[in-house]
């Protein structure tokens, strides 16, 4: 007769063993262990096992994984591609990778080599990794239901042709890209044919082309990101129903640079974003039924340039503050609504004190029209001649589109400026990669 206490203990042990069996085994990998390479561990692993990789440098070339596993790095192990190889190629239905430094992928003009490639996979998490000097860093291909979280990606792209994207999504669905810090690549985050996905809390800076780039992707949401000092800003192109909330677009300077480039975007909302110090805050072309609400445009060359084929867009409760030009509308006859914004250079008055200016405001100046037509005329900026020109046009508009007018300009600015992602998730030791040209710059942000 067994003591009840022993029975209890035995059952508890049995349950515990079952739990362990369900969770799978743990296979340890370290340079001195019986299993000294990751490829070997993966060969040995059964579905649901955990491969625990300890501190060390592993140069195993391209590691192919076709199992459902957890790959966990302890003490920041380094996977080195030696400059001529893709590193992890994963095809799995359940996968978790965490805690690695993946480096030296090497440029290739014929292969899109990646640090971590998920191929036709689902239910995966890519978390807390560092990817240094990658061609493509994280490449998701025909995958769905995944999370890419808290990774630090730093490339050393010098020319755009010779660099890939930090996070590249191609034919994906239901992906969350969250709290990553991306710098020194061609595009920070690139999405092509990606639906129902969310991009949030990321910082993309010092990338050669775009911080974020949507192509042919519908029903996506990006919010609370910061896009700073990228070659050409953020581009959202050929897509529908993209909601853009509370992002910060700043310091995108250059002849072909925009805070946000919208081309053939329809039925989208752009709310509570900040556009600070860009050559052009928003450039939009052939984009219909967009609403721009409570955005702040400050210290840009142009706050907004609206090119041809933009219909039924609504701009309201936005703040236009100290931009060289608030609006440039290139073509007349578009039925957009500009009522109810705050314009810092509004010179009207509010006698009845209802918070709304009593005279309409014409945000598009004649000089803005002239500069759009003849860019060289910018040298006349801030001259008396231009002031006279603008004033005469204001009195009797001839050249500027007649319907670009705010009938109810606000006397006070709308409160609430987007904060973006100011506290980057990844805690990275800046000394880890000394002498890197971009490290300093990328890590000065607190």
């Amino acid at each position, binding site marked *: 007769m067994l003591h009840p206490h022993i029975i209890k203990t035995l059952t508890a042990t049995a349950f515990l063993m079952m739990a362990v069996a369900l969770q799978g085994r743990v296979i340890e990998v370290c340079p001195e262990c019986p299993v000294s390479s990751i490829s070997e561990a993966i060969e040995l692993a059964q579905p649901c096992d955990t491969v625990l990789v300890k501190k060390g440098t592993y140069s195993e070339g391209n590691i192919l994984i076709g199992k459902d596993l957890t790959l966990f790095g302890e003490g920041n192990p380094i996977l080195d591609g030696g400059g001529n190889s893709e590193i992890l190629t994963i095809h799995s239905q359940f996968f978790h990778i965490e805690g690695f430094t993946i480096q030296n992928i090497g440029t290739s003009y014929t292969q899109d080599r990646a640090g971590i490639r998920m191929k036709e996979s689902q239910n995966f998490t890519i978390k807390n990794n560092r990817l240094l000097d990658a061609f493509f860093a994280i490449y998701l291909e025909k995958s769905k239901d995944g999370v890419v979280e808290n990774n630090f990606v730093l490339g050393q792209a010098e020319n*755009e*042709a010779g660099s890939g994207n930090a996070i590249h999504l191609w034919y994906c669905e239901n992906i969350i890209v969250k709290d990553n810090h991306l710098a020194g690549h061609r595009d920070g985050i690139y999405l092509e044919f990606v639906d129902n996905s969310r991009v949030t809390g990321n910082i993309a800076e010092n990338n050669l082309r775009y911080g974020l780039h949507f192509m042919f992707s519908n029903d996506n949401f990006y919010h609370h990101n910061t896009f700073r000092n990228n070659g050409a800003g953020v581009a959202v192109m050929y897509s529908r129903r993209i909601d853009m909330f509370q992002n910060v677009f700043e310091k995108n300077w250059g002849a*072909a640079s925009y805070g946000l480039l919208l081309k053939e975007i329809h039925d989208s909302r752009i709310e509570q974003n900040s556009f600070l110090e860009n050559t052009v805050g928003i450039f939009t072309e052939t984009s219909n039924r967009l609403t721009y609400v409570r955005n702040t445009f400050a210290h840009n060359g142009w706050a907004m340039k609206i090119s041809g084929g933009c219909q039924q867009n609504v701009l309201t409760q936005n703040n236009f503050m100290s931009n060289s030009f608030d609006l440039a509308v290139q073509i007349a006859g578009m039925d957009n609504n500009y009522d109810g914004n705050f314009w810092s250079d509004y010179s009207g008055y509010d006698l009845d004190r209802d918070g709304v200016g009593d005279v309409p405001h014409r945000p598009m100046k004649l000089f803005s029209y002239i500069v759009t037509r003849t860019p060289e005329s910018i040298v006349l900026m801030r001259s008396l001649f231009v002031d006279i020109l603008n004033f005469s046009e204001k009195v009797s508009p001839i050249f500027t589109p007649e319907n670009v007018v705010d009938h109810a300009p606000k006397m006070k600015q709308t409160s609430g400026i987007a904060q973006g992602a100011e506290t980057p998730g990844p805690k990275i030791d800046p000394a880890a990669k000394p002498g890197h040209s971009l490290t300093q710059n990328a890590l000065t942000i607190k």
Partner: protein
Amino acid sequence: MKKLILPAVLIMLLASACSPTPQPVEFGADACAHCKMTIVEVPFAAELVSSKGKVFKFDAIECMADYLKDHAETEFAFQLVRDFNQPDDWQDAKTCSYLISDEVPSPMGAYLSAYATEAQAIQMREAKGGQVFDWENLLIYLK
């Protein structure tokens, strides 16, 4: 004689300013005349030079085709693309062969690449699959 030098120089300058000449693409800085994207991928860059000498650069052959469709009334002295395998120089778009293949993604989603000769296009098709076109049929197909 000396009196003639200045007018001659002026005429030469004027003539050189007006004669259409192709220009190199500054990758990473030039924007596509059609889609406004920065041009980055060398093998897919394309260029039109109007008979008045104005240069239009494109990030993809499909963008150039779209632009040609939208500007049918303009005359172009040069219609240039690059060979996918040797993308360093311009090729005449009209004499090139084209491949549309799911295995060769191009910047604007048409999966379109150019080859200097039909043999090269067919060779690529053997490796990657897809369909080969000449320039005229390509323009019809893209419409």
